[in-house]
């Protein structure tokens, strides 16, 4: 199969073009280093299947980071049949350096001048015919985000692939020859000579009418990067993101939770019982799949909202500026400002955050960033916070969620300081990072991105939750059949309950009592995927509630069941929450997960301690796998142990302090134990650091790949 590679400088629109060519939905963003590993898809061009490969951005054929190495290896070692070189028309002088290197390699090349709209706005006029003639390769204008220029590119690719058009760079290497006729290399002199080639190549090709400096982005940067406005603005933006993600979506969470409960659990149960289906099947469909699906549906609003907001930030070009604003703070914990971007990506999902560390030059910086990334609350944890906030902190819900996010950041800073002084001694490596031009975030991209992230969360969580629901229901039924107990017998103990109850003493100091053993099962399944915590709680709580209900009263299949009235109240409550209508005369029955959480956790202190544990404890299985692969399995196990111990200590400290007055003697003992655990951990790191365990090498002035 013919292979076409898309290569070019970072942030020139390669992935946008790739998505256009192949119909793929690869992640895009307005900063350098969004694509960190190559993506492949098959496209149909000229009636033949073509393998299209999207490569991470590179400035030259010298690799300084892991993502650049991946691009270099593919171009140099795998030798694609054709390279489509995407060039930033608004910054053509810099971009053509790589173009000349690719021409020197002798690989057939097509040049696409992207961002021509920005170039035009800046008064940069490019004579494409002269440029094509000078380079000896086809050159096109394009605005990939709008799809303009795509048809022309596809027509040319068709001609090239069918052999109708041959590409022969007029004089490969002729632009970059030393006086003795040898090709200039990557030495400083060779690089300088190639840069001079670019400048002479552009003579008569580019005309500039607009100013080079004092552009809109420069003026905005004066405010955004300033010492006094930068940090407050950053905090305000982050609070805005969480206000939208939590405050605006909270009523929707209640609405979806109640509606899904009404249709998928109560309504479905009524229907199945009317049909006199076997009790086991009803239990699996309603208490298992129905409850699981309702839980999954309820966390759709905040996840969609957080990814939409993060999409706006990533598309706008603000992210690298925030890296500049936080540079000093990151330096204090031994990281370069550039490490902010992987950490910020962690607010969406930890897995891409870990992969984003590939853009960092130093191995030490990469591993330290990977260890700190899980402290950034990922989108999967947001539904847990939101539902607990709804259950216990209604009016202060936003502030509680924001406090949890800030706690995560503060713990990352504290951990960074500790690790920097023990097993990661040294300063963050030197770096250089491009600041992209600001742009109005394309709404379609942000919506698409939020939808695809939400879909992947729903599928992943749905699989885990529904599987757990079915297994728990079957286990329960099998145990009842084995022991001969009836469904209404509330004294029998299931296997899962036995395991959870055995583990409860470990969690009692943080406010989980024996009656709330379900919370422990939630934490266990959260190791598979954090969003499973809520779904699991919903399933196990509702199973217990169902047993209690059966024990209290025999079900009457003929009893009247109405969808209309509860639905009217639910919709009325939603409209009232958004201020569109007066509140309904009576609020809808709170029979879903929120009321279960309220009745099982009993106090706000226990609920917040539980949230602290969910925030800090071990990353999920997918993140651990990536961490092991990228940093090494030793660091993966370190992350599991460090974060879980820290989570337990922090949750215990909080709960015991919050409830100190209830039992001062007991609280003092647990406070002592938690502080001792933290101290022991810190001492262990100090000892390991002194023995030279870890990554205590001094970073070089710049990337080790030099």
């Amino acid at each position, binding site marked *: 199969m013919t292979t076409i590679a898309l290569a070019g400088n970072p942030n020139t629109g390669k992935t946008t073009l790739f998505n256009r060519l192949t119909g793929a939905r690869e992640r895009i963003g307005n900063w350098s280093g969004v694509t960190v590993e190559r993506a492949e898809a098959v496209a149909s061009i000229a009636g033949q299947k073509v393998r299209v490969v999207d490569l991470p951005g590179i400035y030259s054929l010298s690799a300084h980071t892991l993502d650049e190495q991946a691009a270099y290896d593919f171009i140099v070692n795998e030798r694609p049949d054709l390279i489509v070189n995407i060039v930033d028309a608004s*910054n053509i002088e810099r971009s053509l350096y790589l173009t000349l290197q690719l021409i020197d390699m002798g690989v057939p090349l097509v040049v696409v001048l992207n961002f021509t709209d920005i170039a035009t706005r800046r008064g940069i006029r490019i004579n494409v015919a002269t440029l094509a003639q000078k380079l000896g390769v086809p050159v096109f204008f394009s605005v990939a985000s709008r799809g303009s220029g795509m048809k022309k590119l596809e027509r040319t690719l068709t001609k090239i692939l069918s052999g109708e058009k041959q590409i022969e760079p007029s004089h490969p290497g002729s632009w970059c020859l030393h006086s003795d006729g040898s090709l200039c290399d990557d030495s400083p002199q060779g*690089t300088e000579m190639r840069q001079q080639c670019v400048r002479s190549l552009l003579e008569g090709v580019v005309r500039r009418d607009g100013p080079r400096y004092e552009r809109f982005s420069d003026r905005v940067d004066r405010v955004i990067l300033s010492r006094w406005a930068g940090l407050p603005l950053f905090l305000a933006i982050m609070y805005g993101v969480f206000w939208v993600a939590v405050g605006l979506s909270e009523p929707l969470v209640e609405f979806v939770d109640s509606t899904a409960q009404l249709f998928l659990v109560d309504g479905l149960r009524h229907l199945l019982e009317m049909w006199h289906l076997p009790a086991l099947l009803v239990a699996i469909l309603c208490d298992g799949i129905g409850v699981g699906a309702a839980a999954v549906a309820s966390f759709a609003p905040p996840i969609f909202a957080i990814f939409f907001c993060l999409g706006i930030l990533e598309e706008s070009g603000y992210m*690298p500026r925030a890296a500049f604003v936080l*540079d000093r703070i990151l330096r204090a914990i031994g990281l370069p400002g550039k490490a902010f971007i992987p950490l910020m990506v962690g607010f969406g999902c930890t897995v891409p955050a870990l992969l984003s560390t590939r853009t960092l030059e130093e191995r030490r910086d990469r591993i330290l960033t990977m260890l700190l990334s899980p402290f950034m609350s990922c989108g999967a944890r947001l539904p847990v916070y939101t539902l607990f906030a709804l259950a216990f902190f209604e009016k202060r819900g936003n502030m509680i969620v924001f406090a949890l996010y800030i706690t995560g950041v503060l713990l990352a800073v504290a951990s960074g300081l500790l690790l920097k002084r023990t097993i990661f001694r040294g300063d963050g490596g*030197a770096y250089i990072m*491009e600041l992209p031009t600001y742009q109005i975030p394309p709404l379609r991209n942000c919506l698409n991105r939020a939808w695809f992230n939400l879909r992947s969360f729903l599928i992943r969580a749905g699989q885990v939750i529904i599987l757990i629901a079915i297994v728990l229901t079957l286990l329960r039924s099998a145990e009842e059949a084995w022991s001969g107990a009836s469904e209404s017998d509330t004294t029998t103990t299931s296997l899962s309950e036995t395991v959870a109850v055995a583990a409860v003493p470990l969690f009692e100091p943080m406010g989980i009592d024996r009656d709330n053993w379900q919370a422990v099962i939630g934490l266990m399944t959260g190791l598979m995927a954090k969003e499973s915590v809520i779904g699991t709680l919903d399933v196990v709580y509702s199973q217990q509630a169902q047993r209690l209900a059966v024990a209290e009263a025999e079900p009457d299949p003929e009893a009247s069941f109405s969808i209309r009235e509860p639905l009217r109240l639910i919709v009325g409550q939603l409209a009232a929450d958004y201020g569109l209508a007066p509140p309904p005369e009576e609020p809808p029955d709170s029979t879903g997960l929120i009321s279960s959480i309220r009745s099982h956790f009993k106090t706000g202190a226990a609920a917040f301690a539980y949230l602290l544990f969910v925030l800090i404890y071990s990353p999920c299985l997918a993140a651990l796998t990536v961490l092991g692969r990228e940093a090494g399995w030793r660091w993966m196990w370190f992350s599991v142990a460090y974060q879980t111990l820290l989570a337990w200590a922090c949750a215990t400290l909080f709960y015991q302090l919050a409830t100190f007055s209830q039992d001062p003697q007991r609280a003092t003992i647990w406070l002592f134990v938690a502080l001792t655990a933290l101290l022991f951990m810190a001492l262990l790191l100090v000892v390991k650091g002194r023995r030279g365990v870890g990554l205590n090498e001094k970073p070089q002035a*710049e*990337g080790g790949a030099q």
Partner: protein
Amino acid sequence: MKTAPADIQPNAGVVALDLLTDNEDAIISACHSNKARDMGFAPGVTVRMLRRRSSELAVVVAVADARFMVSRAVAQQILVARGVTAIREDQANE
């Protein structure tokens, strides 16, 4: 804070990039950072300092049409010639 290697200490007319003041233009005379060179910090290119504060550990500069955040350690490896920009710009416009 890292300093420039001994063999690239600036001479009278040439200074390290991080010594330029806000909105000052200069021509790059030498670049001892491979990555920076690949990103366009090549000798002969005009550079403008957009933001330099003593309290900040990175500077913001414009090179051609791109804007960069450059850590001080890298900025000290880039040497620039002050006061020759205007002549070069005039030549370019001609």
